[in-house]
């Protein structure tokens, strides 16, 4: 069966001034699967993600659900792709409920505020992410893990078929990381396409697909089991890592 692609990019390029930070990336993201973008610092992972989300000006073809991303109205694009940024700062005085409600913005008109549907959606996500007991608290009163869940809730409230996340679990402890992995699994089972940038290679190797970036170029796009991927990883990380199979998972360790 021919795989469906949620997003396809051809010769995607991003320039910052005269510097080329992303060069001619050809990429097809599988629908309803989790793809993880990895690479050393400065490889262009965030740039790629932002370009895919339409948050950075880029050249080259970019199709989302078959439509030209650049031709879409801002709100339409917003309903198709939800974004969770790196170290997103919620305003400290916003409550969890307020933050999650902000995710409904693409569905609201300028005049009206939130309607019953929005409120119901927010409630659903709060429950799913176990935040209901915290909904009145402001972000500053939460732990790192709870805060991350709230911001994730905001992104999920958009109800977009595609979710792009940039380092979503950077400061989060292991139990919360485990929860996050569960959430991603559930999302893909419900037909949401997830693309994340992770610097933690161990977590990244749990994805359905891995995209390896290096110096602004795409090195390889493969499944975690693919030996070509392992070879590429070794090369890109200057042979300072080893890859092992432990307890039915790929584990990447520094030498």
């Amino acid at each position, binding site marked *: 069966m021919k795989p469906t692609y949620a997003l396809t990019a051809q010769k995607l390029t991003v320039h910052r001034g005269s510097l080329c930070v992303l060069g001619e990336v050809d990429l097809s993201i599988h629908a309803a699967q989790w793809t993880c973008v990895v690479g050393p610092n400065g490889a262009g992972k965030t740039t790629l993600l932002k370009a895919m989300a339409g*948050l950075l000006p880029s050249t080259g073809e970019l199709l989302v659900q078959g439509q030209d991303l650049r031709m879409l109205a801002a709100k339409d694009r*917003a309903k198709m792709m939800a974004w969770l940024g790196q170290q*997103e*700062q919620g*305003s400290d005085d*916003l409550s969890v409920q307020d933050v999650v409600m*902000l995710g409904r*913005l693409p569905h609201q008109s300028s005049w009206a505020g939130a309607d019953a549907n929005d409120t119901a959606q927010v409630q659903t996500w709060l429950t799913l992410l176990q935040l209901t007991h915290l909904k009145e608290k*402001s972000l500053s009163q939460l732990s790192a893990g709870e805060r991350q869940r709230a911001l994730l809730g905001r992104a999920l409230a958009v109800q977009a078929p595609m979710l792009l996340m940039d380092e979503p679990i950077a400061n989060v402890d292991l139990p919360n990381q485990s929860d996050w992995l569960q959430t991603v699994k559930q999302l893909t089972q419900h037909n949401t396409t997830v693309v994340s940038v992770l610097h933690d290679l161990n977590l990244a190797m749990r994805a359905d697909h891995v995209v390896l970036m290096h110096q602004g170029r795409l090195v390889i796009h493969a499944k975690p089991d693919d030996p070509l991927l392992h070879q590429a990883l070794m090369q890109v990380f200057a042979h300072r890592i080893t890859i092992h199979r432990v307890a039915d998972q790929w584990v990447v360790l520094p030498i």
Partner: protein
Amino acid sequence: MNKIPAAQLAAWLVALSLIAMGLGLMTGSLGWEWGVFWSDPIVQDIRLPRTLGAWLAGALLGLAGALAQGLFRNPLADPYLLGSASGASLGVAIALSLGIWGSASFADMSEAMQWAMRLGLTGMAFVGAWAAVLLTLLLAKGVEHTLRLLLAGVVVGVVLGAITSLLTLISPQTLPAMQSFLLGNTSMLSGQACVLMAVVLLFCAGLSWVFSPLLDGLRLGESTAQSLGLRVLPLRIVLLAVMGLATATAVAQTGLIAFVGLVAPHLVRARFTGRSASLLVLSSLMGGVLLTTADVLARGLWAPQELPVGVLTGVLGGGYLLWRIHSSQIAGSSS
């Protein structure tokens, strides 16, 4: 502090406004008089427009302050950030200087000077404020980078301030009048001024309400705001323009009043969190209450002499901020 819903806070602020305005109607050159005699022309012609005008100017400044703090993501932002204060001062300085030189003959003056004379102090202050904001936007080459905007605003403020000082140096007789403008003054507000401010307030509040989702989105960062479908650049321009219009209108009518725009949103946020749209309206109401109260005190404390209302807002506003800093230092480490 416990938070209360928007509607409740709004009701409180409206009640406070009415009380403050009531007091304003009872305060005049004889100090506080209990009871208002509506038939008294002094009450009708002087106190009513003045009290109402103070509220409207305060509301404009409160709205502008909330917009400034939302657009720049900075709790210390105030409506005068983009140089509108120095622009207005320069406009007034030019008008005052021309008034002195132009005593010769209206017909002798150049076209520009004639326009300035026609506009009068109010018009020139308004034009000056706007010109300064435009200059800042030009200098910052658009609204994309908030840091550049802020820096440009500082530069414009300093340069225009220097030109203003130069003008007052050349015509030192304008000094007392300049001082009166710089310290704020509601004594000459007319019914017309009130109508003008009311129209501008409704217009600005309406536009702010409609475009307030940008402020909500910006609370999560620019990228996120964009990802939520907000067209950050054009919306920012509109809200900056609204902020400029509200500030320029208030400053033209009442001179430079310190701290109202800065403090009103803070006071609101102490008791309310939620949508930016509500925050904007509540800040506006709060600004109205603040300025009306300050004006009543300015008129009543030393009747029949008047304290400049800007001095009172400075003292009260500055005092409140000091208290906030002090109490947050105490509470600071426990989180």
